[in-house]
């Protein structure tokens, strides 16, 4: 008996499941009791996550073998959690669902952006949105926490200081251009992900209408906000470049104050706006594998346009890292436990 909390990961063979395993196998206060994958039941975890070879002898188990645990992570494709949430809730008092199923509180907003009715709308109000920088206090007493959209996370972290400081122009839109890595698409393949098609491409895959927009609308209270997605030559990483017009008279020092007010106390958000050094603005390259989000900004005083940037690892701060951070908060652990890897340089 280790005294550690028992964790189960349902959907452990995908990329976010693999990241959860990488983080939780070395977390000081939990024990990974089960890694569930219907497709790979019976196989060693390292068959799908080769970085974990010789670090665990855990084998995937089938979904029917799910046992009671203290915290259940759901890392299944969109749409599956909402259909089985009553079933899952019988196995654990705390659930963190990484999918998009429980991110939105309003079923009408869900239907508008996902084009279908929610299968368990009565559960939407039970979940707390999974970004600690926005919902830390609510997480402390939550039993159920959602995942976060990786693109939404980058957009939200880029814009949060401007929203909290009430600096945005009241009648002008906010446009967020997002450059994304290929791992956002998950472990499943499709003709577009075939190497000759994907390699070296700069692919606009959702110039308008991306679903993560709904999370920015909900969490920041913005309504005239627009996201555009471009897949670039990265495996991990998202860079959000938000273009926002500010109220007249806002100075760059006002922006420094706003960003410090939002992030000075945040363990995983760093302001990167440097006149020296090699990386002077946020760049997802150096964040691979880390839970850090780097944010920066520049102000065009002629036009009043602020360009706010946020870089993350989509699988970490944009998914599994935030989920583990949420678990730490829910369980009263040190918020940074298991998440202190600073990334690699060079990489």
């Amino acid at each position, binding site marked *: 008996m280790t005294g550690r909390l028992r964790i189960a990961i349902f959907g452990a063979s995908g990329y976010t499941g693999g990241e959860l395993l990488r983080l939780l196998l070395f977390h000081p206060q939990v024990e990974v009791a089960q890694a569930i994958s219907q497709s790979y039941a019976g196989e060693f975890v390292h068959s799908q996550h080769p970085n974990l070879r010789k670090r665990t002898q855990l084998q995937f188990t089938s979904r029917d073998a799910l046992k009671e645990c203290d915290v259940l992570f759901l890392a299944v494709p969109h749409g599956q959690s909402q259909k089985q949430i009553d079933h899952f809730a019988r196995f654990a008092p705390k659930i963190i669902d990484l999918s998009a199923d429980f991110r939105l509180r309003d079923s009408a907003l869900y239907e508008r952006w996902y084009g279908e009715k929610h299968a368990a709308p009565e559960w939407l109000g039970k979940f707390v949105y999974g970004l600690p920088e926005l919902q830390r206090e609510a997480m402390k007493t939550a039993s159920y926490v959602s995942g976060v959209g990786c693109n939404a996370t980058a957009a939200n972290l880029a814009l949060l200081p401007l929203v909290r400081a009430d600096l945005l122009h009241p009648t002008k839109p906010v446009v967020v251009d997002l450059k994304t890595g290929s791992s956002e698409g998950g472990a499943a393949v499709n003709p577009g992900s075939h190497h000759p098609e994907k390699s070296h491409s700069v692919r606009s895959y959702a110039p308008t209408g991306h679903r993560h927009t709904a999370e920015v609308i909900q969490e920041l209270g913005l309504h005239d906000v627009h996201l555009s997605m471009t897949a670039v030559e990265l495996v991990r990483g998202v860079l959000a470049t938000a273009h926002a017009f500010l109220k007249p008279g806002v100075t760059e*020092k006002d922006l*420094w*104050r706003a960003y410090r007010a939002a992030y000075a106390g945040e363990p995983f958000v760093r*302001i990167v*706006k*440097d*006149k*020296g*050094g090699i990386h*002077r603005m946020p760049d997802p390259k150096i964040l691979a594998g880390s839970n850090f989000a780097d944010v920066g900004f520049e102000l065009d005083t002629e036009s009043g346009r602020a360009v706010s940037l946020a870089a993350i690892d989509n699988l970490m701060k944009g998914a599994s890292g935030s989920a583990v951070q949420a678990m730490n908060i829910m369980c009263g652990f040190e918020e940074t436990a298991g998440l202190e890897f600073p990334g690699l340089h060079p990489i």
Partner: protein
Amino acid sequence: MTTCPECEGALTLGADVIAGEIVVCGDCGVDLEVLSITPLTLAPAPQEAEDWGE
């Protein structure tokens, strides 16, 4: 303890700082020239604008 004139970040200078010395802000990375000690006055120093060939 003083503040950076560029970003208002907290700046701690050594006790032996002298006029004319260049110090760097840890927050925004700007080079600052110590114009005077009493009163302590700092101003951004000329700094190369690097575009990394872009």
